[in-house]
């Protein structure tokens, strides 16, 4: 009998290693469930979950919604683009109004870092951070590390390179925390302008040459260039970025051993990742998506389990 140490999932930073292991063990069981002919269990049938998305999302939103439905929860969806937020309502008011309709859990995506932490201080429902600005994206990191564990047997001792736009990536930060908690070595690689100034302080290796990074690592987690968050030019052109940091088959063929390729999606094909790599046998990109549902089911289930204590 075990439970998570927190009633919210705000970031990987707040989780303990045993929390992550409990999530993985529970996700193993849910992965078996979602591969059955009947993919549904009734665990959350008396729970209502609001998916509150202030930012666009396809994968994360679908994945959360499927996870919720496979656990038999009632689901309401909210996206800011067609809501009263446009009329000037605050985040807290919006969410309090949703909660007044008796919602038990909130899955929140917001463009401001710390938005879920702010909500968690003010409302009673369990909050799950589905990405807050450039800060954290905990379920993505959990599903990434879960996928590494599935592919390579273990995360501890593995060398993982995170390549691309580290500066704007919440996936990078959450992955760094998760990988370090599970005992992996982490390297970040990208052009200097896309690396945060103090990235060395979180205990990761920094590499500017993508060839050296690929040679060093067991797993390369390739990130998308986030054009929507870049108000200024961080590199001369996309073509130049691809030339220096794009990963293609020739680069991988030049290595002495195969490495595992990951990408949190959406892929800019031909920019950070070539199709001959994205669709190759060493890519686990679609496994990541499948595992995403199982991992999110585990998170929802475990958080719902401790709700009764309050």
């Amino acid at each position: 009998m075990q439970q998570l140490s927190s009633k919210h999932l705000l970031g990987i930073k707040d989780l303990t290693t045993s929390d992550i292991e409990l999530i993985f063990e529970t996700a193993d069981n849910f992965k078996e469930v979602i591969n059955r002919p009947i993919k549904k269990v009734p665990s959350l049938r008396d729970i209502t979950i609001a998916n509150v998305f202030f930012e666009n999302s396809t994968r994360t939103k679908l994945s959360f919604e499927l996870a919720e439905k496979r656990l038999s929860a009632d689901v309401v969806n909210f996206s800011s683009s067609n809501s009263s937020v446009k009329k000037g309502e605050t985040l807290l008011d919006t969410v309090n109004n949703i909660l007044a309709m008796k919602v038990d859990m909130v899955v929140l995506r917001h463009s401001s870092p710390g938005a879920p932490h702010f909500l968690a201080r003010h409302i009673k429902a369990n909050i799950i951070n589905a990405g807050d600005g450039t800060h954290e994206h905990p379920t993505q990191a959990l599903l990434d590390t879960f996928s590494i564990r599935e592919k390579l047997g273990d995360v501890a001792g593995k060398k993982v390179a995170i390549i691309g736009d580290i500066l704007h990536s919440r996936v990078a930060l959450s992955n760094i925390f998760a990988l370090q908690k599970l005992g992996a070595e982490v390297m970040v690689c990208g052009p200097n302008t896309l690396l945060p100034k103090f990235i060395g302080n979180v205990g990761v290796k920094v590499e500017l040459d993508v060839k050296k990074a690929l040679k060093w690592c067991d797993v390369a987690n390739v990130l998308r260039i986030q054009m929507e968050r870049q108000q200024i030019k961080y590199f001369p052109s996309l073509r130049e970025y691809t030339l220096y940091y794009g990963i293609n088959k020739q680069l991988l063929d030049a290595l002495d051993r195969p490495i595992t390729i990951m990408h949190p999606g959406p892929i800019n094909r031909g920019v950070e990742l070539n199709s001959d790599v994205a669709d190759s046998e060493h890519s686990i990109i679609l496994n990541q998506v499948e595992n995403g549902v199982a991992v999110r089911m585990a998170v929802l289930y475990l958080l719902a389990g401790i709700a009764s204590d309050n």
Partner: protein
Amino acid sequence: MQKRLLLDSKLLDITISRLCQQLIENHGEFEDTVILGLQPKGIFLAERIKTKLESLLQNKIQTGQLDATFHRDDFRRRVTPLKANTTNVPFIIEDKKVVLIDDVLFTGRTVRAALDAMTAFGRPSKVELLVLINRRYSRDTPIEPQYVGKHVNTMFSQRVLVELKEQGTKKDNIWLVDKKDK
């Protein structure tokens, strides 16, 4: 400390042999019958019964492991949630006779959840329940076992402690203990 031995290794062996004979009486060669052990401890018992039946019948017996955690009705109502275990049912139970196997039958709520969990693998033609220890007069549900190792009259303040070699104990022992002396 109140601790009463219900079954030891030798008695357990005799009991399992008897249960196997009773199963053979009803299921013959087990052509249409599968057995499902309930997590966590029913799976060890199911494995022992399978081994014994296979040596008696010279026949392969389909055995699965079923975990009912996600189907329990006390989720969010108990202080600490139960940890889920592996479900491994590598066959479809549609139109099969199913024998559910568990170590202890108390309120019947686990079995109710298991009946629910089982439907994900098809609609069985018949379901039976085998338990090693039947705690009488304590049911919350209208569930009764068809095969019983031993009937025991117990109080709510007591629990049945099952120690099987598969969990790493030296000997098989099944005890009736007071709840506070775990």
